């Protein structure tokens, strides 16, 4: 019975070209926007040139890690080109990693490890120097740690050369894994609604795509859940009580139909985001997003119960989607708002879902599910009483 109602609701919703638009165009639109923002973001990054004369494992690690920093755009070039780019101010700063870099780092010899060239007229030298120094220091600290462990451990255990190499490697990896930058080497920046440190690779996954996806999911949840208003207008509400299962089955079946469509949209958005590399997909991301769409479904259904005309519903949809998206800090950090608005932002679903995505916690999705069950119960009861 519930299934029949759900399938019919999907059929009805897909009769409208807007539903197809929701499923296809929203994905393409987000992809396009993400691409545009990516280009703009690259243009606003600090251009950095690096000359790698060492071409060792360590120098490549430094280059790779610096490149992952969202604040800089790294080009690996030869010395002549690097100096040319600095002189012509195409690059703000240049680094030369000389031959023997890896050996010096392993021996914790930090004297003249790297040569730095600065262009004139840029204010960003300090920031880039810090980013670069942080990565070099990380390798140096790892080596220092590994050397110390070997020195202490090797004496007591009398290890052979092979075992010593293994212990050194393990200690180095352990130190690298637990690397935390000291305050002077920390660059604070904000991702989405929460403050994060510039250390996590995952943080870079939060692009315009994820906030855009959250907005789309909310928008279509509200648009698709306008059926209670249409049903009231068409007299369907006075017909349904005579069906088997009564009003609650009808209400639940329709909500399920909309939820299935929301899931399809989510699948498309997550799939596209994953393919584009704009979204890190793992179990906690999926669970968080499922909790989010369940909550949106229940919330929009309850709202639809209180609204009596399509025009009002369109206004409510626009207001809720715009207000919560702007306020929540989905597109810009909420702490740039006044303290009152910042506090209000913490009550928006986008704020919580962004927090859930950043923290990879199951607590927030579970809260979403709990609230959803309550909202479903409330709307079914209220609407059933007036059916």
């Amino acid at each position: 019975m519930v299934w029949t109602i759900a399938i019919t609701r999907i059929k009805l919703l897909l009769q409208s070209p807007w539903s197809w638009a929701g499923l296809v165009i929203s994905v393409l639109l987000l992809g396009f926007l993400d691409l545009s923002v990516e280009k703009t973001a690259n243009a606003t990054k600090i251009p950095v040139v690096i000359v790698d004369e060492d071409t060792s494992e360590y120098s490549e690690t430094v280059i790779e890690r610096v490149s992952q920093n969202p604040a800089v755009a790294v080009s690996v070039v030869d010395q002549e080109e690097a100096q040319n780019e600095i002189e012509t101010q195409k690059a703000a700063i240049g680094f030369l990693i000389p031959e023997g870099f890896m050996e010096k780092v392993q021996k914790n010899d930090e004297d003249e490890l790297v040569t730095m060239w600065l262009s004139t007229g840029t204010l960003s030298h300090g920031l880039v120097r810090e980013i670069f120094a942080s990565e070099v220091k990380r390798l140096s600290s790892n080596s220092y740690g590994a050397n110390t462990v070997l020195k202490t451990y090797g004496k007591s255990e009398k290890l052979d050369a092979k075992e010593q190499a293994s212990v050194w490697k393990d200690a180095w990896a352990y130190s690298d894994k637990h690397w935390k930058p000291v305050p002077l080497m920390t660059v604070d920046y904000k991702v989405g609604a929460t403050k994060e440190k510039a250390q996590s690779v995952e943080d870079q996954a939060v692009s315009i795509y994820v906030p855009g996806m959250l907005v789309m999911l909310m928008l279509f949840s509200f648009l698709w859940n306008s059926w209670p208003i249409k049903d009231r207008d068409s007299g369907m509400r006075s017909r349904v009580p005579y069906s088997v299962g009564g009003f609650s089955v009808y209400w639940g079946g329709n909500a399920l139909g909309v939820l299935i469509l929301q899931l399809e949209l989510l699948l498309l958005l997550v799939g596209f985001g994953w393919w584009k590399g704009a979204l890190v997909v793992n179990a906690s991301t999926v669970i968080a997003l499922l909790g989010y769409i369940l909550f949106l479904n229940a919330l929009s259904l309850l709202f639809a119960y209180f609204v009596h005309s399509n025009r009002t519903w369109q206004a409510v949809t626009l207001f809720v989607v715009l207000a919560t998206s702007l306020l929540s800090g989905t597109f810009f950090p909420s702490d740039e708002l006044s303290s009152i608005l910042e506090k209000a932002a913490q009550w928006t679903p986008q704020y919580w879902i962004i927090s859930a995505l950043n923290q990879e916690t199951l607590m927030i999705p579970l809260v979403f599910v709990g609230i959803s069950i309550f909202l479903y119960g409330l709307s079914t009861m209220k609407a059933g009483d007036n059916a």
Partner: protein
Amino acid sequence: MITAENLSKKFGRKEVLQDINFYIQKGEIVGVVGPNGAGKSTLLKIIATLMRGTSGSIQVDGLDTKKETKKIREKIGYVPQEIAVYHELTARENLRFFAKLAKNSSEEIWMRRCEEWKLSEHLDKKVKHLSGGNQRKLNILIALLHNPEILILDEPTVGIDISAKQEIVNDLRQLGSEGKTILYSSHDAQELETLCTSFLILKEGELLFYGSKQKVRQFGSVAQSKNFAETLGEIVG
């Protein structure tokens, strides 16, 4: 079949129905008549268990509408004033959908009814492409899917042409001849005269008259020589 005892309904301070009493027998076709705001729709909704009276009671086949709602709903088919179907689906899809939702529905029966009501050839058209008359017929057919004993229709012929009205009235007469009890609200005196065997006349929430068609003419001191429609018009005011 349907008994009202001291039924009253208030919306806030406004009393929409005042102390209504009547008894409708099985198989009667009752025209519920009255000017706008007389309480017709409210009365029909209370009988149909879609609304509750403020005081008094309504019993359907001996069952109290307040206590035995579920059982009563199995006996009643309600046709709202609006065309309560999915306009984006075909007539057949609508019938199949509501048949699945209805208890004891048989495709054979509703297909036969479609043939009798000349709807068969339009079953695969989307409802929004059907004529007003056929939309109204479908609206009634869906209320009949669970084979109710009582059919309650709230102005089911609003906005359609005379020939379509005539067809619907004939179809409803056929239902009456099958033994169904019908409560029919309308402003069209001619179709009421053709269809109904008795009348329940409401004015400003009060029951002005309940009785057979013959008794309508004898009611009060209104002009004896006038035709039925004029008589009804004068009673209603």
